[in-house]
C-alpha cells in the first residue's frame, strides 16, 4: 500500500515526481516490489544513476563494465517497460558504471533490443557521449591552458596524460535538457554528476535550481536515504516551487530527517556543499522535517553559480600486468620481524631484476593490511598474519617471475634467532596467480570550457516498432 505522499492525487502547488529505483543501476538488481508501488504513484519521470568512480580505475582503464550484463538488462528492462507503460520519460546517467562512450552505446543497444523484444510502440532515444580524446587534452596543455588538479593533485602534465588509457568528462544538466527539448522519451547519458540526472528535468520545468540540485542529490542513491538500511529499493521524490519531499516506497522503510540528512553527507567530503558543472549548492541552512510517516520534507538550499565553467575529468591508466601470491606466518618471532622477512624477499627480487621496471607490494593482513601506516594497532599484530604479494610489470612473464621470487623467497628469509629452520612461511597454494591488470587513476582534474555542452555531443535515434 502506497503512503499518502505517494498517492496519485496531488497538492495544488505545481509539482514534479520522480521515482528512483536503483542507486547504481546494474550493480545489483532493482527490487521489484517497491518499484511497482512507485509506478503506481503517478511519477513524471523514472531516473537512475548507473555509474561510480568507487569501483576503482580498472573498468574505465580497460573500458568494461563492472556490472554483469544480465543485471544491466534486467534493470533497463524494468525501467523501460514502466516508463513506456506510463508514457513518461526515463533517464539513466553514467551508463554502464564508467559512462564511457562504449558503455553508452551498449545501453542504447540494450534499449533497442528490449523495445523489439516487447514490440513497444516507436519512441525517441536520446543519448550523449562524454569520453574525451587524449589528443584534445594534449592540445590544451600545449597551448598553455592549465588542467587543474583536484584534491591536491598537480596540474595534468603530458606524462600523466600519456600514461592514461581512457578519460571521461562529467556532464551537468545541459545535455539532458537538450535531449528532453528534442523530445527524447529515453535518455542514456555518459558520465554525469549524479544530481544532474534528476535536476535537469526539474530545472527545465521551471523549478528553482537550488531545490532541483538538492532533489537530485537526495534521490540518486534510491533507498539509501531511508531507514532501516535496505539497498536497491525505490524511493519517490517530489519537487515543488518551495520544497522537496522524499518518500520511502518499501513498506518497511521510512524517510526520516535523520536518514535523509544522513544520506545528504554520504560518500562526499563535506555535507554542506555539492559541486557540479556550473556551480554548487550550499546546504548549511537546509531544514529537514518529518512530513508524514514515510516522507521527509527538505527546504532551504542555496544555489551558487560558478564564476568559471570547469568540467571534472576522470582518467585511468594501465600500470601493468599483475600476479598475486599469498603466504601465512604463525611463528611469533617471525611475525614480530615481518618487515625483515619482506626486506629479505625484496632484496632477492632486486638482485635478480634490479630496482626499477616493476612494482612489488606486500599487504600484511593481521597487522596493518587495510590501513597501512595509518593503523594505530600495527605494533600489536595478531598471533598469525597473512600476506598478499602483488607484482606488477609491463609483461606477464616478468610480473609472474617477480611475484614468484617475492613470494617464495619469504620462505627462505634468514632471521638470526628463528627456531623454525624448515621454512619461514606457510603456503596454502604453492603458486602465484594471474590477476587482472593493474590500473591507477591518472586524471582527477578539471578543464575550463566556454560552453557546458562542448564535451558532450548529443544524438537521437528511434526505438520500438
Amino acid at each position, binding site marked *: 500500500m502506497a503512503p499518502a505522499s505517494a498517492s496519485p492525487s496531488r497538492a495544488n502547488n505545481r509539482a514534479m515526481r520522480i521515482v528512483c529505483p536503483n542507486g547504481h543501476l546494474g550493480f545489483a538488481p532493482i527490487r521489484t516490489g517497491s518499484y511497482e508501488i512507485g509506478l503506481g504513484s503517478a511519477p513524471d519521470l523514472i531516473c537512475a544513476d548507473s555509474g561510480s*568512480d*568507487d*569501483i*576503482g*580505475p*580498472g573498468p574505465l582503464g580497460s573500458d568494461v563494465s563492472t556490472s554483469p550484463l544480465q543485471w544491466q538488462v534486467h534493470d533497463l528492462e524494468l525501467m523501460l517497460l514502466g516508463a513506456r507503460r506510463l508514457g513518461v520519460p526515463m533517464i539513466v546517467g553514467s551508463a554502464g558504471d564508467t559512462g564511457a562512450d562504449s558503455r553508452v552505446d551498449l545501453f542504447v543497444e540494450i534499449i533497442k533490443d528490449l523495445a523489439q523484444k516487447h514490440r513497444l510502440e516507436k519512441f525517441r532515444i536520446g543519448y550523449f557521449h562524454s569520453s574525451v580524446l587524449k589528443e584534445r587534452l594534449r592540445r590544451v596543455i600545449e597551448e598553455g591552458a592549465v588542467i587543474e588538479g*583536484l*584534491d*591536491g*593533485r598537480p596540474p595534468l602534465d603530458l606524462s600523466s596524460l600519456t600514461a592514461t588509457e581512457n578519460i571521461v568528462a562529467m556532464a551537468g544538466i545541459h545535455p539532458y535538457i537538450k535531449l528532453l527539448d528534442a523530445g527524447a522519451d529515453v535518455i542514456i547519458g555518459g558520465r554525469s554528476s549524479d544530481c544532474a540526472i534528476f535536476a535537469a528535468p526539474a530545472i527545465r520545468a521551471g523549478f528553482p535550481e537550488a531545490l532541483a540540485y538538492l532533489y537530485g542529490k537526495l534521490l540518486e542513491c534510491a533507498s539509501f536515504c531511508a531507514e532501516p538500511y535496505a539497498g536497491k529499493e525505490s524511493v519517490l521524490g517530489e519537487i515543488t516551487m518551495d520544497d522537496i519531499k522524499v518518500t520511502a516506497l518499501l513498506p518497511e522503510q521510512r524517510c526520516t*530527517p*535523520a536518514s535523509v*540528512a*544522513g544520506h*545528504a*553527507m*554520504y*560518500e*562526499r*567530503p*563535506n*555535507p*554542506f556543499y555539492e559541486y557540479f558543472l556550473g556551480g554548487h549548492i550550499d546546504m548549511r541552512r*537546509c*531544514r*529537514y522535517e518529518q512530513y508524514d510517516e514515510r516522507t521527509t520534507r527538505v527546504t532551504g538550499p542555496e544555489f551558487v553559480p560558478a564564476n568559471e565553467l570547469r568540467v571534472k575529468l*576522470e582518467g585511468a591508466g594501465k*600500470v601493468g600486468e*599483475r600476479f598475486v601470491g599469498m603466504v601465512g606466518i604463525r611463528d611469533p618471532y617471525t611475525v614480530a620481524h615481518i618487515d625483515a622477512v619482506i626486506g629479505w624477499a625484496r632484496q632477492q627480487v632486486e638482485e635478480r631484476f634490479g630496482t626499477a621496471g616493476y*612494482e612489488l*607490494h606486500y*599487504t600484511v593482513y593481521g597487522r596493518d*593490511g*587495510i*590501513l*597501512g*601506516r*595509518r*593503523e*594505530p*594497532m600495527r605494533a600489536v599484530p595478531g598471533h598469525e598474519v597473512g600476506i*598478499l604479494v*602483488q607484482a*606488477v610489470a609491463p609483461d606477464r612473464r616478468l610480473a609472474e617471475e617477480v611475484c614468484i621470487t617475492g613470494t617464495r623467497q619469504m620462505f627462505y628469509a634468514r632471521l638470526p634467532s628463528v627456531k623454525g629452520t624448515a621454512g619461514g612461511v606457510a603456503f596454502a597454494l604453492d603458486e602465484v596467480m594471474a590477476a587482472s591488470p*593493474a*590500473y*591507477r*587513476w591518472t586524471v*582527477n582534474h578539471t578543464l575550463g570550457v566556454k560552453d557546458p555542452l562542448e564535451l558532450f555531443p548529443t544524438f537521437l535515434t528511434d526505438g520500438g516498432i
Partner: protein
Amino acid sequence: MAADGRAVRLAEIAKTIRSKNAGVDKVTFDVIFSSRADYDLVCASGCLARAAIAALFRVSEAEITDHVAFEPALAIKFTILREIASGSPGDADIFGSQQYGPLLDVEVRPQE
C-alpha cells in the same frame, strides 16, 4: 555515556560509524548518533576533534581536508586524503569502506 561519568567507547553510543570514498583521492568518515545528548557529549568531549583524528590515524592535520559537526544528521564528519589513490596497486581498500575501524575504540570522556 555511563551515568557515573566514566569514559565509554564510541562504538557503544554511536548509531553508525562508517567510511567510504569521497572521490578517488579521499576517504570520508561519518559518525552518527541516535540522540542529541550523545552527539552533544561527543562534540564537547573533543575526542573527534581535528587534532584527535590526526593523532588516531597518524596523519597531519593538513591531510584532514574537511571536518564538520553536521547537526541535522546528529553526525560528525571528516575527510582524509588517501596515501594511495583508490584501486592503485598497493591500495587494499578500493571503496575505503573499512578505514573506520580505529574509531570504534575511541574513548569518550565527558568534559571536566
